[in-house]
């Protein structure tokens, strides 16, 4: 059938690609745009490995058909570092040792990013709820929660300093 002219902003850059409308956003990101940081886990919205931020909202990119992202803005794990400098969350994950096999990490970091953009100072319960759609089979989550707390504290401090 006729291809769909998909135009969206990915990590700040406008892309236009002709795609089969049955492709999922996940497939376009990985196989067409070669942004392979986004992982496929369960393919049915249970594990969160494919999480991306779509128009400011955290979504599972395996549940979004590519045309549903038309005209929208997508942020993937490749898009959160700036000018080669890691995002506060990426640094905090390293510091806290919150990465083991690493498969869940891109989705986990984007879930945390979406949480902090809405709630810059979350409590433990709020962090747990914010990452409740992301499964990690290695870490036991304690270090991930710690990492999100670290990043939140750093961002708070920066904001405090900027306010002075």
């Amino acid at each position: 059938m006729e291809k769909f002219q998909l135009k969206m902003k990915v990590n700040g850059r406008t892309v236009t690609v002709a795609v089969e409308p049955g492709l999922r956003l996940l497939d376009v990101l990985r196989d067409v745009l070669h942004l392979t940081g986004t992982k496929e886990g369960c393919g049915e919205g249970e594990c969160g490995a494919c999480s991306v931020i779509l128009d400011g909202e955290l979504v599972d990119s395996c549940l979004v058909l590519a045309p549903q992202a038309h005209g929208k803005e997508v942020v993937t794990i490749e898009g959160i570092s700036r000018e080669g400098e890691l995002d506060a969350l990426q640094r905090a994950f390293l510091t806290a040792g919150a990465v083991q096999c690493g498969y869940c990490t891109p989705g986990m970091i984007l879930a945390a990013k979406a949480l902090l953009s809405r709630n810059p100072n979350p409590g433990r319960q709020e962090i747990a709820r914010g990452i409740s759609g992301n499964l990690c089979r290695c870490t036991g989550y304690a270090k991930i929660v710690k990492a999100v707390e670290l990043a939140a504290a750093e961002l708070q401090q920066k904001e405090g300093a900027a306010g002075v």
Partner: protein
Amino acid sequence: MLNLSAYHQPKSLPEALALLGSSGRALRPLAGGTDLVPALTKGETEPLGLVDLSRIPELRGISRVDNQIRIGSLSTFGEIENSPLLLAVPLLREAAAAVGSPQIRSQGTIGGNIANASPAADTVTALAALDAVARLESAAGSRSVQVSELLCGVGQTKLLPGEVIKEILFQVPPQGSRSGFVKLGRRKALAIARMNLALVITFEAGRISRARVALGAVGPNPSRRPALELVLLGQEPSRTLIDEFAMAASKEVGQMLGTRPSVSYKREAVKGIARDLLQRLFFGAGQVVG
């Protein structure tokens, strides 16, 4: 990849209705996609054409006029959970907050929750307790149906070919009402409800003057339970009343499930969620499950 026969992204409701109306059942409406996309990917649903409803402004937004609330069918669970206009209906906000995960709540919609007709649909239990009405539109015209009457079995609705849920309407419960929703799942996130319960209780001079009780995941579709409403009606809130209600709920669940294997578990479990929720509504305390 899905092998779709067509994909349309209409920008207005009349355009969508014309497409759906002329297609028989060859085209299917697509809302958030959180259920339909994986079902299509896994081949559980016959490949067909889709009409993506996400660009239709008439299907969006939450508003209130006097005591009537209108929720556009494409409103997401996240929008419902966070809408200040819905502070008057905690049961619906709590039901939306209990759905899936942050990812599912930012994508899944209330209209999809109804049209999908899952026995465990969390917001549908709350809508049943609110006596909510769905306004349906098709190329042939519009009609309004009680949400609970629109559902007629697991995955089955009385939606006609070419018909789309445009919006959900309900009255804010009367002054002096308290409401809440409780869900029992195997874990907190991403769990399909094993059972859920929504209550609206109105107090007048210390007594319950109006009660709405709805149960979900007990039987094919969520529904109001008049027998349980009668237990509360005219009574003063008390520990004894909570016990009586829990026992009655257990009996009701037993009758609804008959000889189903889950009956012995659910007959016990409903007592726990009933106690939790009533305690919270009567005395403002008690653990909230989910």
